[in-house]
C-alpha cells in the first residue's frame, strides 16, 4: 500500500503542470533570481558631500582625504548646508562631512575642534559605510596632527602611535569571512524557498483533488497510504535542498562545507517534517488556488520569524515560542549552522528537537485528518456550499 501510494503521488505531481512547475522548476528559477541583487556582495564608493565652511588649508586637506578614501565618492564640495540637504533628499548623497568655520584656528590654538559627520540613517548599509568612511578621514587627519605634536616629546613615531591609542582593536569576522550580504541572506532564504514552493505545490494538489473529487490513493485511508504520500513529498523537499546546498552554494561561492553528515541527518528530518506539515495544511484546502494565495503573502513574516536577520531574543516572547510551529524556523537556523558554520549535531540540538516534535505532532494530526478524508470526499457537495 505504501509504495502504491508513493508512486501514485509521484505520478500526480509529475502530471500536474502547475504543481510540477512549483515543485521542481520554481526553486531553480529562484536560485538564480534571488541572489542576483546581492551578487556584488559589498558596497563601495558611497556618494558623499563635503560642506566646507572653513575654507582653510586644513579643511581642504580633509576634503582631499575624503576624495582619496576607497569607500567614498565625494560628488560635491560646498559651503552651503541647504545644498547638502537638497542632495540628501534627492538621494544623490548618502553622507555629509561638515567642517565648520574656525576649524583650523581652533586646532592651531590647541583647542578641540569639531567636525560633524552625518549619514542617511534610513539606508542602514550605506549609512554605515558613509559614517565609517568619513570618521576615518577625520580620524586620520586628526591623528596626523596629534602625532606631530607628540613627536616633539617622544623618541620615535612608533612610540608616539602607541601612546596615542593604548588599546588597539582588531575585529575578525568568522564563518562569512568576506562579509558578503548575499552569503548572509541567501542560505537562509534557500530553506524558505524550498518550504514555500513545496507548500504551494502541495496545497495546489490537495485543493485540486478535493475540487475534482479525485484522489491519487484510492480505497480506504490506510497508514501505508499516508506514509507513502508523506515519503513522496519528503523526496521533493530533499531533492530541492540538495540542489540548493550542493549546487547553488557552490555556484555562488558562499561559505560551505561544514558538517556533511549532520546536514544529511537534519535534511531527512526536515524533509519529513515539511511533508507532514504540508499534508496537514493541504487537507484544509478546498480549491486549487487558495494555498497559493495565502502562501505568497506569508513568505516575508515566515522569513523574519526564523531569527536570521533579527535577533530572536528581541522578539516578543509569544513569537519566540510560536515561531517553532513553522518547520522553516528550525530548518533555516539548523542548516545555516551546519552548512555555513560547521556546527555539530549537539550544537543544533534545539533545532533537531524542534523538528522532531513538529514532525510527530503533524503526523499525529495529519493521520487523524487523513482517516476523515473518506467522509469529506463522499460529502463533497455539502462542503462545496460552504467553500468554493
Amino acid at each position, binding site marked *: 500500500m505504501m509504495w502504491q501510494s508513493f508512486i501514485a503521488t509521484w505520478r500526480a505531481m509529475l502530471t500536474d503542470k*502547475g504543481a510540477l512547475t512549483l515543485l521542481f522548476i*520554481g526553486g531553480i528559477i*529562484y536560485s538564480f*533570481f534571488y541572489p*542576483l*541583487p*546581492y*551578487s*556584488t556582495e559589498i*558596497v563601495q564608493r558611497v556618494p558623499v558631500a563635503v560642506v566646507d565652511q572653513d575654507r582653510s588649508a586644513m579643511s581642504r586637506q580633509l576634503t582631499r582625504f575624503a576624495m582619496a578614501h576607497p569607500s567614498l565618492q565625494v560628488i560635491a564640495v560646498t559651503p552651503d548646508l541647504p545644498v547638502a540637504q537638497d542632495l*540628501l*533628499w534627492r538621494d544623490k548623497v548618502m553622507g555629509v562631512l561638515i567642517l565648520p568655520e574656525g*576649524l583650523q584656528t581652533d*586646532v592651531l590654538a*590647541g583647542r578641540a575642534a569639531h*567636525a*560633524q*559627520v*552625518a*549619514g*542617511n540613517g*534610513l*539606508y542602514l*548599509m550605506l549609512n554605515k559605510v558613509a559614517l565609517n568612511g*568619513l*570618521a576615518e578621514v*577625520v*580620524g586620520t587627519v586628526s591623528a596626523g596632527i*596629534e602625532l606631530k605634536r607628540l613627536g616633539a616629546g617622544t623618541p620615535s613615531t612608533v612610540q608616539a602611535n602607541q601612546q596615542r*591609542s*593604548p*588599546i*588597539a*582593536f*582588531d*575585529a575578525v*569576522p*568568522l*564563518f562569512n569571512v568576506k562579509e558578503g550580504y548575499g552569503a*548572509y*541572506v541567501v542560505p537562509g532564504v534557500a530553506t524558505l524557498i524550498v518550504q514555500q514552493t513545496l507548500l*504551494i505545490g502541495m496545497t*495546489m494538489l490537495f485543493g485540486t483533488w478535493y475540487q475534482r473529487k479525485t484522489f491519487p490513493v484510492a480505497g480506504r485511508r490506510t497508514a501505508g497510504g499516508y506514509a507513502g504520500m508523506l515519503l513522496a513529498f519528503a523526496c521533493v523537499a530533499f531533492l530541492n535542498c540538495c540542489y540548493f546546498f550542493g549546487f547553488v552554494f557552490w555556484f555562488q561561492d558562499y561559505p560551505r562545507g561544514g558538517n556533511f553528515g549532520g546536514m544529511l541527518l537534519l535534511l531527512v528530518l526536515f524533509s519529513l517534517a515539511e511533508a507532514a506539515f504540508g499534508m496537514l495544511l493541504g487537507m484544509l484546502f478546498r480549491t*486549487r*488556488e487558495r494555498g497559493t494565495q495565502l502562501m505568497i*503573502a*506569508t*513568505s*516575508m513574516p515566515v522569513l*523574519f*520569524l526564523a531569527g536570521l*536577520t*533579527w*535577533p530572536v531574543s*528581541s*522578539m516578543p516572547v509569544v513569537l519566540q515560542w510560536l515561531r517553532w510551529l513553522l518547520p522553516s524556523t528550525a530548518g533555516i537556523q539548523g542548516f545555516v549552522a551546519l552548512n555555513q*558554520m*560547521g556546527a*555539530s549535531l549537539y*550544537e543544533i540540538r534545539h533545532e533537531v528537537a524542534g523538528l522532531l516534535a513538529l514532525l510527530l505532532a503533524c503526523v499525529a494530526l495529519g493521520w487523524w485528518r487523513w482517516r476523515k478524508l473518506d467522509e469529506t470526499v463522499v460529502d463533497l457537495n455539502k462542503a462545496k456550499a460552504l467553500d468554493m
Partner: protein
Amino acid sequence: MNEADKGPVSALAREWARLRGDFWDLGMLSWIPVALCGILWLVFSAGIARDLPIVVIDNDNSTLSRQLTRWLDASPGIAVAAKVASSDEALHRLRERTAFGYLLIPNDFEQKLLSGRQATVQWLYNAQFSSHAGALLRDVRTVSTTLSAGIEMTARMKKGMSGVQAAAQFEPIRTTLNSLYNENTSYEAFLTLALMPAMLQIFIVVAVVTSIGRELRDGTVPQWLTSANGSWLRAVGAKLLFPLIAYCALALLYLLFFSLARDWAVAGSLPALLLSMLLLVLAYCGLATLLIAATLSLRLALSGAAFITAPAFAFAGQAFPLMAMPAPARAWAEALPLTHYLQLQTKYWLAGAPWRYGVQEMLILAGFAVGCGAVGVFLLARRANAPAAWGRA
C-alpha cells in the same frame, strides 16, 4: 437613473455578492493582511536589539581586563553571557548561537598598558549573522575606545597636563557622528515601515488577479461583461474597486498606527505621502490587471504574482542598496513600482522632504498605473471573451 448608470452598480453588486460569499477572499481584503502586517511589526517592535550575548576570553584577569568586561556587560546592546577559557569553547558558543562573538584579552594586557605600550584586543564575531554582528561590533568598539581614551588621558595628566589640555591634545579634531532621520538606527523605522508596503503590493496583486482570474477559470466572462453593460472598462473597474478601497484603507491604517501610536510622525509633506500611497495601490492594480490579461490563467497569473511580488523587497534597495546591484538586478528593481514608492515613503515620512522632491517617482507610479492598466484592459477586451480563454487551470 438611465440605463447606462445601472451598469456599474450591477457589476459592483455582483462582485460584492461574490466576495461576501467567500470567507477567504474577503479575508484577503481585510483581516489577513492586518494580521500578517501585525506579526511583522511585532517581530521588530523592539526597534533596537538589546543584550545580545557574547563571551569573553580573559587571559589577563587583571583589574583593567575585568573593567573592560564589566563595561561591555553594562553596554545596553551587549550581554556578557560567560567567561570562557579557550577559543574552542567560544567557537562552540558561536556555533550553538548562544553567543554571537567573543573578545580575546591577551595575558599581558594590563602590564603593557601600565608601562605605556600598546595592547591589542581581538573581537571575533559571527559574520554569518550580519545584523547581530553589526550592532555588536559598534558597541564593542565603543567600549574599547572609551577605555583606551581614559588610559591615554590618565597618562597625559600624569605628565602634568591639565584635564582640559589633555583632552584637547589627544584628539585635535573631534567627530560627531549622526544618523540623520533615524538617530538610533532603529529597525522599527527603517525596516518595518518599508515592509508594510512590501506586504501591501503582494495582497493587491493576489486579490486583483484572483478576482478577474476566477471569471476566466470558471468561464463566467459573458455574465461578468453583461453585468457591466458590455463595457470592459466598467467590468474591470468593478473588479478593482473593492481591492482599491480595502488596500487604501490598509495603507491609511499603517500610516495612522505608526505616526500616531508609534510616534513616527510624518516629517515631510503629508499630502504628497497620501498621494504616493494611492498611486502605489493604483500602480499594482494596473500591474495585476496586465498580469492576468497577459496570461488568461489564474494559476499562471498567481505564479507570476509570486515571482514578482514575493522577492520584491529584496530588490527594492532598502536593505541592500540599489547602487551596489549589478545592472540586470537594478533594471528589475526599477521595473517594480515598490522601489519607487519606497523612495517616496522614505523621503516624505521620515526624511522630511517637501512634496517637490518626489515628483519624478510619482509620475513613474502614475505611468505604471495608466500604462499597465490600459494595456491590461485592452488585452482583456481583445482576448478574454472567447471560450478558448476559459477554464485554464
